[in-house]
């Protein structure tokens, strides 16, 4: 590790120490007859840490103590005696919802983005409707999705899809539209048919735009899942937070937030790895832009 990187890590750690330190002092040291950060509203870092530990410990114990082998077909079932309602199941459910939302939203976005970008008339016809749907705050769709799809994972997937779809759609649309005219003319001169142009020019260009928005779209898929769970569900990280909030359990709310934050960080790290692999042809400065 070079000294510069070490210094950066040190400074980043310092920020965390200062924030947590302030939180700890504010919530445990009396200040002018009260607390700067009353426990009821802010909990304490130690309690939150302990709660996170307890959630994982209890969840793991429940699974380990269970004599029955885990039935993979019941992994997402909250009534499973071993796996049900453990923090592991909440994580797995949110992850499943997020991934399904991302896959379905990305596939639909790529397909429609391509189709409309290659068809001037269709794109002109649909333009106002797409703008309208995109301007709509997606949260208002959650109740409708719950009516249609129930309280299970699919209403959350649907909410995530509506978020992911537009990001991918706009990027693919842009990617196809903005293929350099010179590269296109050159490809034609090299003897490419329309199908070959698709495979060697339009597709890589659109994919590069899509992958440059990978962080955003994966992030939104998780947001869709958590918001959906929060509004009505029986499992998932959003449910965990919602349950804690319902009993004024601030510690539980913060614990859920910490788990969620770490979970998103891990996923973002994985996305960075995938992106590095896929966009190797891009000049370093261009990666992550647009």
């Amino acid at each position: 590790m070079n000294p510069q990187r070490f210094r950066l890590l040190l400074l980043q750690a310092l920020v965390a120490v200062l924030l947590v330190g302030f939180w700890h002092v504010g919530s445990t040291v009396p200040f002018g007859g009260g607390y700067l950060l009353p426990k009821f509203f802010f909990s304490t870092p130690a309690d939150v840490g302990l709660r996170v530990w307890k959630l994982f410990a209890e969840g793991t114990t429940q699974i380990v103590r269970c004599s029955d082998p885990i039935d993979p077909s019941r992994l997402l079932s909250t009534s499973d005696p071993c796996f049900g309602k453990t923090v592991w199941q909440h994580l797995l459910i949110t992850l499943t919802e997020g991934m399904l939302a991302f896959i379905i939203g990305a596939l639909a976005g790529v397909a429609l983005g391509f189709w409309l970008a290659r068809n001037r008339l269709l794109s002109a016809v649909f333009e106002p409707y797409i703008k309208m749907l995109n301007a709509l705050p997606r949260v208002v769709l959650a109740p409708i999705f719950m009516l249609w799809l129930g309280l299970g994972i699919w209403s959350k997937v649907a909410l995530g899809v509506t978020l992911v779809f537009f990001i991918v759609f706009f990027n693919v649309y842009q990617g196809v539209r903005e293929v350099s005219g010179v590269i296109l003319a050159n490809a034609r001169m090299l003897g490419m048919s329309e199908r070959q142009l698709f495979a060697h020019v339009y597709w890589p260009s659109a994919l590069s735009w899509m992958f440059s928005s990978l962080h955003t779209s994966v992030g939104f898929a998780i947001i869709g899942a958590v918001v959906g769970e929060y509004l009505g569900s029986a499992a998932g990280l959003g449910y965990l937070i919602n349950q804690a909030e319902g009993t004024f359990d601030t510690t539980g709310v913060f614990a859920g937030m910490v788990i969620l934050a770490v979970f998103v960080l891990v996923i973002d790290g994985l996305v960075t790895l995938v992106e590095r692999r896929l966009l190797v042809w891009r000049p370093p400065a261009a990666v992550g832009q647009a």
Partner: protein
Amino acid sequence: MHDRPAGAAAVARRGDADLAAQEAVRFRRVMIAFSLPGGASYPAVAATDLAIGGHEFVAIVGPTGCGKSTLLNVAAGLLAPSSGEVYVLGARLSGINRAAGYLFQQDAVMPWKTARDNVAIGLEVAGIARAEAVAKAQAWLERMGLGAFAERYPHQLSGGQRKRVGLAQVLIRAPKILLMDEPFGPLDAQTRQIMGNLLLELWAFERKAVLFVTHDLEEAIALADRVIIMSAGPAARVIGDHTIDLARPRDASEVRLSPRFHELHKVIWSQLRTEVLKAYNASGATSADAAYSAGGA
């Protein structure tokens, strides 16, 4: 090869009858106009007649915005003439010119493919097995002095290296006609001369028909058998056709020191200068000009 006289007529007499007997490209009364927003039409190129022989290296020189690149795009089949016809190897052209390779002024290689894949693609899309296409691409890159850079992506190459990849990409398909649109324009002076020599060397092997557009008269004389001068636009037309009788093989930089080069340059430049001044005085003067250059001419 040393005793080979310059000029297409002489080459034609020496055989390779199938191609030499034929004209590579013929423009017949080709007229090109662009429609402007507002319904008006801008005449870019006036009715032009021009023939390029089967083994001839022809350079087209003219002031900026005279429509020489437009003419090249018509020969490539990327642009249809407003009236008139283009004949390629005797047959009337419609759609893309399949007999031609085109080297663009800007970078046209695909940034998402490595140098080798960029060169191989021309063969792959023609249905040649990938392994064979890649092996041939590697051989071409080695010929261009880029053997060690095959795995690099375009952004990891210099401008001159990218140009060579582009040239290999075009030549691997063995086109009978080579169209070049100020191909060395963005390069620095030294690299330009090196690329010029590389081009002459490659051309000497097969003597393809070459249509080379440039605004650099010295480059045109150093490389070509014939230099065509176009007038300033609008409605640009061919106003000069000069045979360059400098001996081949040539060295693109050394040939510039010969007395004959200077004579030719003097004669042609006196003609070109008037047009360059005309174009200079007209530049930015009319909205049509501005629209034209914005249209990527």
